[in-house]
């Protein structure tokens, strides 16, 4: 018995030791800069700055494997701003970033700042006192280039989109200027030529003709009737053949401003005409008969393995990577079909000459918010604003962060492009040196005009400009605005619309019932959604 007790006591003490070890392990961890900083509060940092030490700012690090806390880029920022820097470490998964941030705030470790949370979350943070107010004069004084960039894209008083009912600003909007002109319709140019069409289809009839030939004239020359004209997915409303709807002047999946009237394209009369056309095409087997089953990967597979001749995507996917970004449909397709080429279009023109594709709102993210503790530490907020402004719009600092030191890590070619010098052409070496695009300080304000020399090889500039000019259409003006009614009904309405659209296109539901669908849609909450949008639009247009 005594023996047994001893054994047990030993067992229990093992547990205790375990706990002690874990506690020690943790206190050791606290020495590691990131966790110490994460738990650092406003009070601590304020007192630090008061005692004459350097102010400590935090930089987000979503790629811990590709960054260096004390590397060249971080030192460049330190030097430029006279501050001390540390990392907030997270991951690259947006859902996880959001979850973790919510947990941190809920447990009282509010970070100094964060970026790009969903709108509803950002509103909540502002409403419930987790986010700090950003005074406009502080912003204008410390981030002038940012303000200039915003004004360039949004006109005077760019902050009107984020000003809350109390007249205060709680977030710095991020513009992704590409969004409003990204979607284009790509045709396989080599296929068009093969079937005897010399120009890119312009009208809806020409498009129908091209798709017919893609289906019937064996454009890939394999002797089998195994190609379709076009495919899509049904992941969102706007993913369903948006260019065809544009031909009839409607933009499903977005609340758009039609001469002062807030309109949802999916229930407009034009949508009925578009669905009629699509139904006709479906019956003649021009479009992928199982487009609605596609996930993104299936779509990629079908495009890259030459099963379809037309698809709607962001323009840069159709170009060579040197022109802008990693052109997937260009690169991978060409590996399989060396002479493959894309002809880009803004979508076919309809009977009354309308055309376009549902695009994205450039203000698709909430941008940057500051933790509430900075409301009382304006000096720090000002310093952050200076950092954001400098890392995004100061050419010298921007280059130092991304490319390092001229002559050591990179050189500028005669054509103006930046090239890494060996051994820094290897990412590992760049990580060691501490440069690259992974330093989020904040790396959110992307002025693509400013960044052009880094994105596009000079000789490809016209190609890029040409492609970018094709992205034309309308976008959802409601994206950045608070919209509780829409939030409530969105899922039900979206699912209903997608399902009915597929049924109309595939003929399971006769198109004559379109008006019945519109009535159902309005009854299921659509009416309220439109009313809410109209009220917001009136408010915006009044200003």
């Amino acid at each position: 018995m005594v023996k047994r007790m001893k054994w047990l006591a030993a067992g229990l003490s093992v547990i205790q030791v375990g706990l002690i070890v874990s506690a020690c392990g943790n206190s050791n961890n606290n020495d590691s800069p990131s966790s110490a900083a994460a738990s650092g509060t406003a009070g601590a940092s304020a007192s630090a700055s008061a005692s004459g030490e350097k102010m400590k700012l935090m930089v987000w690090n979503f790629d811990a494997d590709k960054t260096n806390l004390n590397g060249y880029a971080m030192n460049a920022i330190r030097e430029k701003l006279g501050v001390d820097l540390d990392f907030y470490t997270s991951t690259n998964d947006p859902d996880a970033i959001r979850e973790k941030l919510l947990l941190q705030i809920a447990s009282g470790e509010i970070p100094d700042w964060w970026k790009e949370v969903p709108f509803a979350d950002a509103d909540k943070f502002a409403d419930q006192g987790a986010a700090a107010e950003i005074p406009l004069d502080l912003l204008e004084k410390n981030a002038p280039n940012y303000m200039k960039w915003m004004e360039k894209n949004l006109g005077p008083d760019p902050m009107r989109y984020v000003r809350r009912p109390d007249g205060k600003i709680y977030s710095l909007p991020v513009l992704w200027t590409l969004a409003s002109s990204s979607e284009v319709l790509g045709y396989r140019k080599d296929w068009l030529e093969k079937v005897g069409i010399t120009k890119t289809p312009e009208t809806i009839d020409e498009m129908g003709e091209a798709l017919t030939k893609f289906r019937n004239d064996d454009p890939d020359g394999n002797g089998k009737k195994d190609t379709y004209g076009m495919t899509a997915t049904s992941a969102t409303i706007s993913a369903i053949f948006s260019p065809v709807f544009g031909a009839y002047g409607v933009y499903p999946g977005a609340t758009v401003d039609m001469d002062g009237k807030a309109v949802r394209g999916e229930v407009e009369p034009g949508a009925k005409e578009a669905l009629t056309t699509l139904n006709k095409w479906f019956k003649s087997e021009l479009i992928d008969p199982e487009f609605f089953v596609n996930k993104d990967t299936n779509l990629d597979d079908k495009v890259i393995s030459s099963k379809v001749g037309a698809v709607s995507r962001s323009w840069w996917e159709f170009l060579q990577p040197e022109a802008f970004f990693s052109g997937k449909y260009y690169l991978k397709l060409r590996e399989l079909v060396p002479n493959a080429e894309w002809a880009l279009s803004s979508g076919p023109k309809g009977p009354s000459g309308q055309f376009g594709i549902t695009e994205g709102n450039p203000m698709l993210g909430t941008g940057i918010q500051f933790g509430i503790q900075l409301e009382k530490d304006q000096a720090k907020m000002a310093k952050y604003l200076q950092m954001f402004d400098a890392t995004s719009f100061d050419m010298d600092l921007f280059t130092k962060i991304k490319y390092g030191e001229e002559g050591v890590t990179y050189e500028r070619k005669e054509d103006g492009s930046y090239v890494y010098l060996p051994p820094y052409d290897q990412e590992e070496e760049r990580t060691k040196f501490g440069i690259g695009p992974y330093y989020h300080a904040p790396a959110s304000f992307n002025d693509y005009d400013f960044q052009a020399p880094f994105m596009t090889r000079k000789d490809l500039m016209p190609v890029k400009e040409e492609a970018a000019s094709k992205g034309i259409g309308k976008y959802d003006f409601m994206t950045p605005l608070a919209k509780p009614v829409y939030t409530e009904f969105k899922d039900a309405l979206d699912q209903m619309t997608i399902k009915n659209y597929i049924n109309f296109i595939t003929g399971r539901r006769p198109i004559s019932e379109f008006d019945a669908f519109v009535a159902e849609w309005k009854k299921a909450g659509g009416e309220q959604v439109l009313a809410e949008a109209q009220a917001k639009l009136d408010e915006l247009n009044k200003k």
Partner: protein
Amino acid sequence: MSDIGASAEYRELRPRAGPGERARRFVKYRALLLMLVPGFIFLIIFNYIPMYGAILAFKEFKIMGGIANSPWVGMKYFDKAFHDPHFYVVLKNTLIISFYKLLFGFPVPILFAILLNELPGRRFKRWVQTISYLPHFISWIVLSGIFITIFSLEGPINLLLKAMDRLPIIFMADEHYFRSILVGTSIYQSFGWGSIIYLAAIAGIDPQLHEAAIIDGAGRFKRMIYITLPMLVPVISIMLILSMGSILDAGFDQIFNMYNAQVMDVADIIDTYVYRIGLINANYSYSTAVGLFKSVVALILVLGVNRIVKAIGGNEHTLW
């Protein structure tokens, strides 16, 4: 010795109630009671302490107030769920899919384990077993891609239909087939892995039982029915009861990666619905309320099935 004899003896030793008797058992089992302590400390710290979070279902979560300082809203979020017509659709789908998965998926690993055990050749047996559980390690993102290919218009199943002069079917978008596909593919992914516990139990069967039966002239089939299967009954019944605990988890990863708008009415489950709602508007209170609802249903089912098992098989195979 034989197992049956042991349990008969055991039954005779069953205690009679009474304070003196209980005290005697306390003394007898004092060492065992102490053994329980570390495990229960873990349970209290890591399972019971956080449970206060469940009250969020009755509160409006305020991120700066924490759980304690968030205001009470009573049944608001339950009302919200129960007044949402779509909630009944997803609840029904969850129950149907889950029930089918249980009905068809539960016996498969048992059958597989028994048949595998019948195979002569230890090496071959090992290979089959190892390979059978491979799909368990492949995520649904990958598996769904494969199944979409198999059930597509160009896929092998439609080629077969074509060869039989039938019209092709878009299975993944057909409400008549989709649930069957869900159940079938879920069995495919998990039967090998699920059979591990039964194979372990079969391994625990005393070989003497089989030898004795052989001497009595029992064939393989008879031994399968009269020895192997009865010896598995305790494991089967406890696995069945415990599986009730997750009856409202119809398989988020699988369905999320396989469904599409066409089959929404039969495939949308509680978890996918809550996920989509949460994407638009993160709401801890609502998802906590739904989680609590699922727990209560699971509790009722576990207790219910436990009672049924008790009624059929007596105390031997129940949870307590």
